[in-house]
């Protein structure tokens, strides 16, 4: 491993390219991407990379970026792309097509606020808007987490028990544009970790099938059920991928959910993305001062690891879910999932909306959330929390 000072976008570009090159002895790789802030450097990185057996297609839109990936994947290549915000929504039709075509494409999303109002800073609302597209979704805390999650994503997506595409989200600017140290694995290790892709559904000259043709309601329901069954395999396939990662790279990456100090906690914070770092600092400080607080970092959003979450929350009395996103009319999107995961007689689960549109979520903000939730005996409507409430 080489420790390098990189931006999130550079790290993502490096790992995507290495994953592509790892398939050089099979059918190669092909990426299509279209620039959008804050993803642009990933597209530039991939366009500048000399693939051993691969191509980068400079397409005219995100919609076509995903279409190129689908064509490449249907022809047996490893395929990947990256985008952000409105670009992802422009791509959205094909995001669903790729998901329900079960093509193991990996996409990095540099999270950005969906305009309007026009805003280039981080908000998870873009990738969460395609949460129902039959993609695995992973949310990253740091550059290292991003590197690791992209590699895990290929392993899980291409696993024959799963065969679904995977989206890896990093916070725009906070991760995508900030320099941080990360271990970037050498090509030989990536080669070992990512087996050659042998896609069963690849179109072949000698097999006249029509991939994606018109299907009866009954067969369509059956197909949806198959997708759901495959989604249910993801948590244990991911666990295996984490174990295998450790044996190849000598370092254990975070898996679906990481719990810290939750077993005896009265109050538990549920956090995702780069906010986890500040949340961890707050939880450790409160613990040091004798507070019974815990932290749940949720990396895997789809499929949502309900059982792990419920078990980790344990006997906590209050759960504060921090969301850097908004489902208008509902509240925080992670909150909705967490609330559905715990039994109704369980803890109070409160939605806090923080850092929307890219505002800093500082330790003071998170500390304020913990103080706020301790005062509550019942949950209320989602709280837009800025840190100056206290």
């Amino acid at each position, binding site marked *: 491993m080489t420790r390098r000072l990189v931006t999130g976008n550079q790290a993502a570009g490096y790992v995507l390219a290495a994953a592509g090159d790892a398939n050089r002895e099979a*059918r*190669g790789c*092909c990426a*299509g991407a279209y620039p959008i802030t804050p993803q642009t450097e990933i597209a530039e990185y991939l366009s500048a990379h000399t693939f051993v*057996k*691969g*191509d980068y*297609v*400079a*397409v*005219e*839109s995100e*919609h*076509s*970026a995903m*279409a*190129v*990936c*689908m*064509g*490449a*994947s*249907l*022809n*047996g*290549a490893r*395929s990947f792309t990256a985008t952000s915000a409105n670009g992802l929504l422009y791509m959205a*039709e*094909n995001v669903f*097509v790729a998901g329900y075509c079960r093509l193991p494409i990996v996409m990095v999303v540099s999270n950005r606020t969906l305009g309007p109002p026009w805003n280039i800073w981080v908000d998870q609302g873009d990738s969460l808007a395609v949460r129902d597209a039959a993609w695995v979704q992973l949310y990253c805390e740091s550059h290292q987490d991003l590197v690791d999650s992209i590699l895990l994503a290929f392993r899980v997506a291409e696993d024959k028990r799963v065969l679904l595409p995977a989206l890896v989200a990093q916070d725009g600017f906070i991760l995508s544009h900030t320099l941080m140290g990360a271990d970037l694995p050498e090509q030989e290790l990536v080669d070992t970790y990512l087996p050659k892709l042998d896609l069963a559904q690849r*179109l*072949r*000259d*000698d*097999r*006249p*099938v*029509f*991939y*994606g*043709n*018109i*299907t*009866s309601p009954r*067969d369509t329901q059956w197909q949806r059920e198959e997708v759901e069954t495959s989604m249910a395999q993801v948590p244990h396939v991911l666990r295996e991928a984490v174990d295998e990662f450790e044996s190849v790279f000598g370092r254990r990456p975070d898996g679906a959910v990481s719990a810290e100090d939750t077993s005896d906690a009265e109050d538990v914070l549920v956090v995702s993305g780069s906010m986890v770092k500040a949340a961890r600092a707050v939880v450790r400080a409160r613990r040091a001062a004798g507070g019974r607080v815990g932290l749940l970092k949720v990396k895997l959003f789809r499929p949502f690891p309900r059982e792990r979450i419920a078990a980790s929350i344990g006997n906590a009395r209050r759960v504060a879910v921090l969301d850097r996103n908004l489902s208008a009319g509902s509240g925080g999107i992670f909150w909705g999932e967490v609330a559905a995961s715990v039994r109704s007689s369980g803890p109070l689960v409160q939605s806090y909306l923080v850092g929307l549109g890219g505002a800093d979520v500082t330790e003071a903000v998170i500390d304020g959330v913990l103080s706020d939730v301790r005062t509550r005996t019942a949950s209320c409507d989602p709280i837009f929390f800025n840190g100056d409430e206290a």
Partner: protein
Amino acid sequence: MTANVEELLRPGNSNCAGCGMTLGLRWFGEALAGKTPTLVIPPCCATVTAGLFPVTAYNAPAAATAFASPAAVATGFARVQHLNGERTPIVCWTGDGSTYDIGLATVSAAAERNEDIVYVCYDNEIYGNTGGQRSGATPRGAKTSTTPSGKPEPKKDMMAIMAAHRVPYAATLSLAHRDDFLRKVQTALSLRGFRFLLMLSPCPSGWKSEPEETVELVRLAVGSGLFPLYEVYDGCRYRINAWPDGSQLDDYVSRQGRFKSKRLDVNTLRADIAADWRRLEAMASAFPVEEGPSALQSEGTGGADACEGDS
């Protein structure tokens, strides 16, 4: 055709009687001469052609794409083919809704990148699959379900758009000119790079025409000058393949219910045709095909370089 040639379109498909696309698909299959293509098909009648999962009427592997995406999905296919040294023809088989309208940016970008694709548009001049709404390919005066009193605007000139991309080959296909049809498909298959084929495809249910008149309608469209038969190499070498033969435009429109509209003015259509032909003849005379395809075209490099010295 010998009895044991496997057709691209198998029997038992659900296409309408008199569907121009059906005949075009069979002829296209014949021109493939045993090569198996990969078909890339957006939502259009050709998706329905395949029939209901798990069967398919196509005797070749095919992928269904989003409406605007066939040229981009085919790009992915073609790139991976090249990486693996394979030569399967990658064929987009698309309607005019995808080509002229919703997928135009995608087609344009794939053409500009000169992707190694044979792109066929079977043009029935309506959104046939949804029951016959107007498209950019609908001719002036034709009634559709969204232009109930006839379309006021003229048909988009897709061939001119593709020629402006300087693709290695662009040609129109007529179901009334079989030898010309087969030769052009074979020419397209022999070249590399982006190849565009535009086929006028009568749709009896949308055109309100008699199924048995499909081929005759195409003959009249070509003969009256409404659908010029020509081919363009590298966007800069033109060859006209059939000249208007005096067929009457009135005969063409009177055989189709879609032209029984208040807006139809045959004289305006005639003026459109005259203007189109002035431009086409000027191009063919200024930039003729001299000795067939240039050496460059066999490798499909295309682009402006292929036209050097022409002007």
